[in-house]
């Protein structure tokens, strides 16, 4: 099993004064009614989860569900009322202000919904800004900035000001800026929500491309369930400050924990979520295969090939071990099983 990079342990965030005393009084398990009666607003209730090294962990919820609050608790932009945030086993909440600044300078990067670019700086200076803050000299930081700008496909726009760029381009700058310090943890707070649908799709592809290159540990916030299943290794669904279910996209679709989750997954095209590994049957030894697919491949991507072939396909992991086989009927079942 992969080791956790960042963990939340029983994190609470209450707005309103005297939150800590209130939680102690109720043994860290007040009911929603208790909270309401005390005049607090619980933005995050008792959230616990691990984010593993190199995974894309998506926190999905509607507005007011507490998803933005929890990502800010994880970087201590907002001070949690109770709980622990562990980064590589070190409790962030015990860090001094100076330690925190060091951590943020070198280990964390964040992308914001409305880009948060500095209007008075050019693209180049914006991207180089986090390095400038660390005191890196101009030549080095600008070299590094040019590298990341090229990485996100904005070469040639270095001397533009943010307001001269389109929304999509501005967010590319935001992404480049957050990557300039080579962070270990990458927070993205609804990065594509402010963009048009077409651009959003393009940016999602771009994001996946970058992640293949960089393999960061990612916490990605969104209110768009389609975006979540498209990008996530695992999804946490939040409602009213509580984490309702955590799981792989297909687990949410196949076994929704509550009606609330089921409501989201109802409209989802199953073939886009289910992977070869879930649908495959045990491999028979005497068949000849039409081809190979990876266990993580989504059915929608491979359906065309398998359906038009007489032979079943082999599911093999990256080392070439045979894990199972996929035949036409199984695929058709998935495709036909639409709510």
């Amino acid at each position, binding site marked *: 099993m992969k080791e956790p990079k960042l963990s939340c342990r029983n994190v609470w965030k209450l707005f309103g004064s005297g939150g800590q005393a209130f939680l102690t009084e109720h043994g860290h398990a007040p009911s929603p009614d208790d909270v309401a009666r005390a005049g607090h607003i619980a933005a995050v209730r008792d959230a616990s989860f691990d984010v593993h090294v190199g995974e894309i962990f998506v926190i999905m919820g509607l507005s007011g569900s507490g998803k933005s609050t929890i990502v*800010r608790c994880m*970087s201590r*932009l907002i001070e949690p009322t109770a709980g622990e945030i562990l980064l590589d086993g070190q409790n962030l909440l015990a860090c001094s202000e100076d330690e925190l*600044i*060091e*951590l*943020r*300078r*070198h280990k*964390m*990067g*964040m992308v*914001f*919904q*409305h*880009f*948060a670019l*500095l*209007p*008075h*700086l*050019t693209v180049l200076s914006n991207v180089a*800004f*986090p390095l*400038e*803050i*660390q005191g890196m000299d101009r030549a080095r930081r600008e070299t590094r900035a040019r590298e990341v700008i090229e990485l996100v496909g904005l070469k040639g726009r270095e*001397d*533009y*000001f943010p307001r*001269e760029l389109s929304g999509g381009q501005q967010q590319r700058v935001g992404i480049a800026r957050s990557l300039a310090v080579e962070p270990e943890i990458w*927070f993205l707070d609804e990065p594509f929500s402010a963009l048009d649908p077409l651009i959003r799709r393009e940016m999602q592809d771009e994001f996946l491309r970058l992640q293949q290159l960089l393999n960061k540990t990612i916490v990605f916030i969104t209110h768009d369930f389609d975006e979540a299943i498209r990008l996530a290794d695992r999804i946490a669904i939040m409602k009213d400050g509580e984490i309702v279910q955590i799981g792989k996209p297909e687990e949410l679709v196949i076994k929704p924990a509550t009606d609330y989750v089921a409501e989201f997954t109802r409209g989802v095209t199953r073939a886009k979520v289910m992977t070869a590994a879930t649908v495959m049957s045990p491999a028979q030894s005497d068949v000849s295969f039409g081809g190979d697919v990876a266990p993580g491949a989504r059915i929608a991507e491979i359906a065309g090939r398998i359906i038009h072939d007489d032979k079943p396909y082999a599911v093999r992991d990256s080392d070439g071990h045979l894990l199972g086989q996929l035949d036409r009927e199984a695929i058709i079942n998935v495709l036909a099983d639409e709510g």
Partner: protein
Amino acid sequence: MALSPAWAGWLAVLGILSILWYLAGEYRWLTQYPQDWIIPLRYWISDFMRWLVREASFGLFTFRELTRAFAWLLDIPLQACLHLLAHGIVLPLGEGGLRLPPLPWIGVLSAMVYLAWRVGDRGLVILVGCSFGYLVLFGQWQSAMVTLSSILVAVPLGVVAGAGLGILAYRHRSVEKAITPILDLMQTVPVFAYLVPVLFLFGFGPVSAMIATIIYAMPPMVRVTLLALKTAPVEITEFGRMAGCTSRQLMWKILLPASRHSLMVGVNQVIMLSLNMVIIASMIGAGGLGHDVLTALRRLAIGSGLEAGLAITLLAISLDRLSKATAEYQAKPARLRGRRGPLASVSIGVGMIAILAASYLVGTAMPSLAVFPQQFAVSTGPFWDELVRLVNIHLYDYLDAFKSTLLIYVLIPIKRALMEAPWPGVALLVGFAGWRLGGPRLAVVVTLLVLFIAITGNWRNAMISVYLCGISVIIATAIGIPVGILGASSERMHRLVQAIVDTLQTLPSFVYLIPVVMLFQVGEFSAIIAIVLYALAPAIRYTDHGLRGVSPEIIEAARMSGCRPWQTLAKVRLPLAMPAIMLGVNQTIMMALSMLVITALVGTNDLGQEVYIALTRADIGHGIVAGVCVAFIAIVADRLIGAWADRRKRLLGLT
């Protein structure tokens, strides 16, 4: 139909007020606050100030030494500017010293035009060229350079001090809480009132005038800075923290640069207010153009007053437009600034210095070029004086009839009625209004403010102020709101109205007095007209702005329901714009009160006159108390209207 409790309350209060009014004939103490009951606050303040100046000491040095040291420090840059621009300097070299002349007019003129050419368009070049040309041609140069010197020193100091206070208030809630009421008071206390203590602490002279200017011009900068920092996008702050900024880096590298546009508005305000202060500051020794206007006004030499007043106005407009254009220029991406790229700003500074230096060398070599020949100077003074004489001879009967009719049938009856207003009744009415509009807290505050005016013995004077101000505000809104409605009717009208309002707001308040006195001589009537002219701008601006702010969807809905244009206006746009319009009325009241004090110069009998008298006699206590009373009238009006507008906005869901 049953009477709602609110209306019953209003009726009861008005009933009590009328009874008290009626009884006032019987019991004089109701209208004339008894001498014995007056709290001698003004004497306490005077005594305290005397103690401060004569005896207060910090051990190592006395308070007086501190203020003198402060003045000495500020005098250094001011003298430098004065020598450079206006007087030249005599160096103790050789026999009789070596006299170095000031910068020649042609150099300063060229440098300003060069700046306008680099940062602005052709219009700005023409404006700046003509304005500075006017200063030269009409013989105003020397005075204008004195004024410009004090502006050049006061503005940066005001901006830095204001921004510093704003930052401090942003960082510490306690500082913010402490300075907000002071700022409120400073923006409503008439300027004359704090001229007195400045005069007392720093003496008579250009430095005191400059200190008063800075104090007067600084509050908007504090407010703008605080507001800009507070309204900076949350995400930007969050980004800064995530990038690992220390709190200093967050302030200097993120918050301040990111809100530089708002900060420039503050800088612009400081420039305009400093110029507005030019004439008033000359009462405590500023010299320059302000001094020229003031002496002309006192001698009733309309012509020369008008010329010097116009010089201040042109200086104000030029500096206003130049500073705006410079700000816009710096905000422009370097790529679009032309081939000089990022070094453009530096090159402009170098260019200006080069022009000044070259002209200085030429001027020193050929002194005849450095001074504009007197015989070419133009003056229209005699023309204006002649015109006024003509107007007074030929139109006197009509103007006088107009003035007398208004005075006899409208103004004096209203004044009488207000003079008879019983102070307990007025306090009750104001308190009740406060309670209805904003709750018990507001009620207590406004009642106390009204009572303060009574118990410090300023009741009658205050009532005259209320009368002058009230009439002026009514006239100003009666003119301003229709003009604003006109402005909102079409894009062309909007631009026209905007231009008028901009001009009205750039004129220093004193300038309004000149033509009015020309036509109507001194007296309350002239005062009212000057106040109306000065206070007109916000009524127009806010009406126009409020009507334009009504959501187009709602207007479309009204039109689709079959409203005629006037129905749309009366039934949809005006009600929705009302909170904005009322804020405009509020601004009008504030401006009327600040002008009120200035009209003391043309002979009124109100609080403003008291402050002015206190200034001439250096009677600190009286000046401050009367000034604070004016401020309290302003605050009462402001709080009541503000509470009403807030409530209305909440009801309309506009917040």
